[in-house]
């Protein structure tokens, strides 16, 4: 006989039966059930198999501290492994199964491992399989890697679905005055008091019902208190969030919340991750009942005493007909009373020699047998509890005394306040001998702990501490007081027995942390082998590293270690808790930021027009830039060669909208830019542009671009696409932090202008054909590096600069962003009419590599002006940012890698970007340089590259070099040439 459902009582809705599937079987539960309570009600005692030994496991708790009943929920892409069944709200159609078992959890082949259990102690696998001579001699961990695969398969938890998750997850933001975590009487009282005083209060409850411990009470008084609390919460205007876990506390009153949504038709997200900002946090997180360590304390049918009471009173599930309640404190008695009232035959075994007179009298009055000074020694029964061997005290040890036939063993080994959240903020709980637990200290500003989480064990105590906190926080937030004190935790009515381990001379397997199959023998082994620090203990045995993060097992583990070392529990130490309190899914962390929402996309105003021209796009920072425009079945390579060739022969147009554009305005603009650019800008004539370079403070090149003088006190500065933000921030820093005396204002105008580069020998006549006044482009009006304002034939205003990145006669044409698509239409009509083309970033790359123009690949944050062959850009007449540190001796060394062009020795050969440049007789290490960019050059008719090599071109004249790419193509003989590989004199550009 196992657990069974009672015909009445509980907080379940018998009018709403729910059908669910467990291990393929169709079972029934009710609304208000958890999966665990529904399984117990259906007599399913074995619901899981343990991690290492495949031991049968049943339900051990009624909450997030569950250490036994883990299963896999859902199917297909919704598969959710390693879920504590005690936390799953039952819904119609729920599908769940056991895990780490084959063929199923009731009959598991893997259980044979349990018979060899004595071999599988802590560290067994590592000791046995790692570095076994002779197999692994000189082979590193190679053989272990093979064993590991097999071992991992047999030891473990559930399996994730390798399918996309079809559900939606969201992120949200919340603000409130006070956050209360936990809706038991303490939390509810605090929330009501604060909200009634007019504060904005959020109350989060991880359960799907408000009430905390009140939900587990079956008496009339308890039920009416539950009702009145719920009414007051609503009347006070407390914002209640059910199914919501405060998983982490952070600085500045920020709290991470995970809200689960009830099963629905798919309109709601599955989970929502909230970031809540509060003025004050009240933790009413309750306490968790600890197990005791005795033989076979993990058998299905052994659970915590409070869980037994919860299953009885909340879910109307009787854990067994004949029940033994084992306790070392006063709290187990109420469970016994309730079970007895429900018709079970109950025996209380109280480890305290004197027992508890008051409660014992009540028990005897109800025909409950109380055996003081006794404790459970061993559980009889392999698949479920069949009998309990009871031990009595024999001096300092325990000796078997009797055996009681029972099918349920409910254990109370004392209580551990849930101090995790305060610990996230650095709170250090202190061991209290009287309470036999770690009690939190009021040592973190902005956090108040109330109720049993603060060591209040009575209803009245919890209520009083909650009220005091609610009232105190009201006065604090009104500014009436800086801090407030709460009533101190009262002493337990009868002392808690400091009992953790019950064993005789022939101990059976006794679990400290059932999730990871950590036994007291493992903890002792850790001690024996010197892993005595609590952090070493944890890592050596995996104690507290399972799904529950040691909610029940940690203190027990510490106690075992303390006993082994002959010291007190607090001297072993305690590990610090870190977020999350309970596990959160990766889906919730990602939220909506998946797929195309992973990062924002910036498109130019001409994007759709490019699409209509068949453009392919490539990411440049957040921008989607045009990559190439394939025609017919052209490949990328075919396309860029054609596009670059067309530009050199005729004319091409390329979207350059994404270049950063910064308006620099104010009377000191010239002086400012003189300090920022390496070259002089203050004397630039109005209507002229100049190529300019900015260094960092340390003398390394930061960015390059052009600078246009719009008027005496206004400039337009362009940056590269990827550095636009960095440059803007740097200019703002200079003006606000370093040089606040300068009268200059900078404004990003990147989004205000849409532009095309028009390049090629026919670019002038092409652009002329688009303008209202074509004569503006005559050389005398618009020489190289001039710019002017004009109008398109349609009357749309535009700004034209004669600047060139491609080395051709070229213009950049900008219009207000709204006219971007119009500009594309106007230009393309004339470009197409002349046999020109649209070109993308790939062809742009070809053109600039041919010219030896540098981009981010060359200016990679390590290069000096000299390295990039741009030493002439440094003014000798004025200081500028970086001018002091660019002269550091190391940066002036002649053998630094310098920018060079690279030709394949055999002009038919090709080589790759990323190759290392070496001397043919020294192909090793870092080589002598590297290749930053390669392309096929249509102008030269072979592959070319740019790169850096020690000493630069002059060092390598007449010397052989190889491009080493050992992983891909091996070695290619190359020739080091000037980076200006095409039209070095600039005849085409200046023409």
């Amino acid at each position: 006989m196992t657990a069974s459902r009672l015909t009445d009582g509980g907080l379940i809705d018998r009018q709403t039966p729910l059908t669910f599937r467990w291990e393929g079987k169709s079972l029934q539960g009710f609304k208000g059930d958890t999966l665990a309570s529904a399984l117990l009600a259906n007599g399913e005692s074995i619901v899981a198999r343990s991690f290492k030994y495949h031991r049968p496991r049943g339900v051990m708790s009624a909450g997030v501290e569950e250490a036994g009943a883990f299963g896999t929920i859902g199917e297909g892409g919704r598969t959710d492994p390693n879920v504590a069944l005690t936390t799953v709200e039952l819904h119609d159609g729920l599908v769940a199964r056991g895990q780490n078992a084959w063929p199923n959890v009731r009959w598991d082949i893997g259980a044979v491992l349990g018979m060899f259990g004595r071999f599988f102690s802590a560290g067994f696998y590592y000791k046995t399989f790692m570095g076994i001579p002779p197999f692994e001699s000189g082979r590193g961990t190679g053989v272990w890697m093979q064993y590991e695969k097999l071992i991992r398969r047999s030891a473990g938890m559930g399996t994730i679905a390798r399918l996309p998750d079809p559900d939606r997850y969201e992120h949200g933001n919340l603000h409130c005055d006070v956050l209360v975590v936990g809706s038991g009487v303490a939390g509810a009282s605090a929330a009501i008091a604060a909200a009634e005083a007019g504060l904005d209060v959020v109350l989060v409850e991880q359960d799907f019902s408000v009430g905390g411990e009140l939900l587990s009470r079956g008496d009339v008084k308890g039920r009416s208190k539950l009702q009145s609390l719920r009414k007051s919460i609503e009347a006070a205007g407390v914002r209640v969030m059910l199914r919501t876990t405060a998983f982490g506390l952070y600085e500045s009153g920020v709290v991470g919340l995970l809200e689960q949504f009830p099963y629905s038709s798919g309109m709601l997200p599955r989970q929502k991750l909230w970031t809540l900002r509060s003025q004050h946090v009240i933790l009413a997180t309750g306490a968790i009942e600890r197990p005791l360590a005795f033989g076979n304390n993990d058998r299905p049918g052994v659970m915590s005493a409070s869980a037994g009471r919860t299953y009885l009173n909340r879910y109307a599930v009787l854990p067994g007909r004949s029940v033994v309640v084992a306790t070392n404190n006063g709290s187990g008695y109420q469970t016994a009373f309730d079970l007895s009232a429900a018709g079970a035959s109950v025996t209380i075994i109280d480890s305290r020699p004197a027992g508890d007179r008051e409660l014992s009298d009540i028990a005897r009055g109800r025909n409950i047998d109380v055996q003081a000074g006794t404790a459970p020694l061993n559980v009889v029964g392999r698949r479920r509890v069949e009998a309990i061997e009871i031990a009595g005290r024999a001096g300092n040890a325990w000796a078997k005394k009797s055996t009681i036939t029972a099918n349920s063993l409910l254990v109370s080994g004392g209580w551990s306040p849930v101090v995790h959240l305060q610990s996230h903020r650095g709170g250090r709980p202190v061991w209290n001998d009287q309470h036999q637990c770690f009690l939190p200290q009021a040592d973190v500003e902005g956090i108040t702990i109330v109720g049993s989480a603060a060591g209040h064990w009575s209803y009245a105590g919890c209520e009083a501490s909650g009220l005091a906190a609610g009232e105190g926080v009201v006065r604090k937030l009104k500014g009436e007081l800086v801090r407030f004190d709460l009533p101190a935790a009262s002493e337990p009515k009868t002392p808690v027995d400091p009992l953790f381990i019950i064993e005789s001379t022939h101990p059976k397997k006794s679990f400290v942390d059932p999730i990871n199959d950590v036994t007291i023998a493992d903890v002792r082994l850790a001690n024996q082998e010197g892993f005595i620090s609590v952090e070493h203990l944890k890592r050596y045995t995996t104690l507290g590293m399972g799904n529950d993060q040691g909610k029940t097992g940690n203190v027990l583990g510490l106690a075992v270690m303390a006993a082994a070392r002959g010291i007190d529990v607090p001297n072993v130490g305690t590990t610090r808790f870190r977020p999350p309190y309970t596990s959160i899914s990766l889906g919730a962390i990602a939220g909506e930021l998946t797929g195309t929402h992973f990062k924002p996309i910036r498109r130019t105003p001409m994007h759709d027009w490019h699409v209509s021209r068949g453009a392919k796009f490539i990411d440049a920072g957040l921008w989607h830039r045009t990559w190439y425009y394939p025609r017919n079945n052209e490949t990328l390579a075919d396309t860029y060669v054609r596009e670059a060739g067309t530009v050199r022969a005729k004319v091409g147009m390329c979207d350059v909208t994404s270049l950063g554009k910064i308006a620099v305005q104010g009377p000191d603009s010239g002086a400012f830019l003189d300090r920022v650019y390496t070259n002089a800008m203050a004397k630039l004539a109005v209507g002229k542009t100049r190529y300019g370079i900015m260094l960092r403070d340390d003398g390394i090149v930061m960015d390059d671009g052009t600078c246009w003088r719009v008027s005496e006190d206004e400039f337009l500065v362009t940056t590269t696409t990827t550095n636009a933000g960095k440059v803007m921030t740097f200019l703002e820093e200079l003006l606000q932090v370093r040089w606040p005396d300068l009268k200059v204002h900078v404004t990003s105008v990147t989004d205000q202008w849409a532009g095309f580069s028009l390049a090629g020998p026919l670019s002038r006549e092409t652009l002329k054909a688009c303008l209202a006044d074509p004569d503006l482009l005559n050389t005398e009006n618009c020489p190289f590096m001039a710019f002017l304002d004009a109008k398109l034939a349609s009357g749309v205003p535009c700004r034209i600069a004669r600047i060139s990145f491609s080395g051709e006669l070229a213009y950049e044409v900008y219009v207000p962003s709204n006219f971007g698509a119009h500009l594309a239409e106007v230009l393309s009509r004339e470009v197409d009419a002349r046999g020109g083309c649209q070109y993308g970033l790939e062809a742009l790359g070809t053109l600039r590599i041919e010219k030896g123009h540098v981009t981010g690949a060359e200016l990679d944050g390590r290069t000096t002006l000299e390295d990039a062959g741009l030493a002439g850009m440094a003014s000798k007449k004025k200081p500028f940012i970086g001018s002091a540190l660019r002269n550091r001796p190391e940066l002036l060394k002649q053998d630094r890698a310098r920018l060079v062009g690279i030709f394949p020795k055999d002009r038919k050969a090709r080589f790759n970007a990323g190759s290392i440049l070496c001397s043919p007789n020294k192909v090793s290490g870092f080589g002598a340089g590297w290749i930053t960019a390669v392309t096929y050059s249509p102008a030269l008719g072979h592959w070319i590259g740019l790169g850096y090599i020690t000493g630069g071109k002059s060092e390598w004249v007449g010397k052989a070099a190889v491009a080493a790419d050992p992983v891909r193509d091996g070695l290619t003989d190359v020739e080091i040439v000037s980076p200006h590989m095409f039209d070095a004199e600039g005849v085409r550009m200046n023409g």
Partner: protein
Amino acid sequence: MLRINCPFCGSRDHIEFAYGGDGSISYPALDASPEEWTKAVFERENIAGRQSETWQHLYGCRMWLRVERDTVTHEIFSVAPAHPGMGTHEDSQ
């Protein structure tokens, strides 16, 4: 997560801000010696405790701020505009 009280915008999550650097540095003149610049650019105290920092409200008003922060507890003691002549909303109240 830190909350930084921007003097122009109010209390905001720190993800709206970008850390600048050590706020105690006074940069030398541009024509100062490489030694002085080396000191300003490379030599930093690694403070466990109260530290002056610069932050920019990057995804807000874009103003540069001086922040006094404890690097151990993350407590923020003060936030002020980095620009000494900059009035704030709070000043005008």
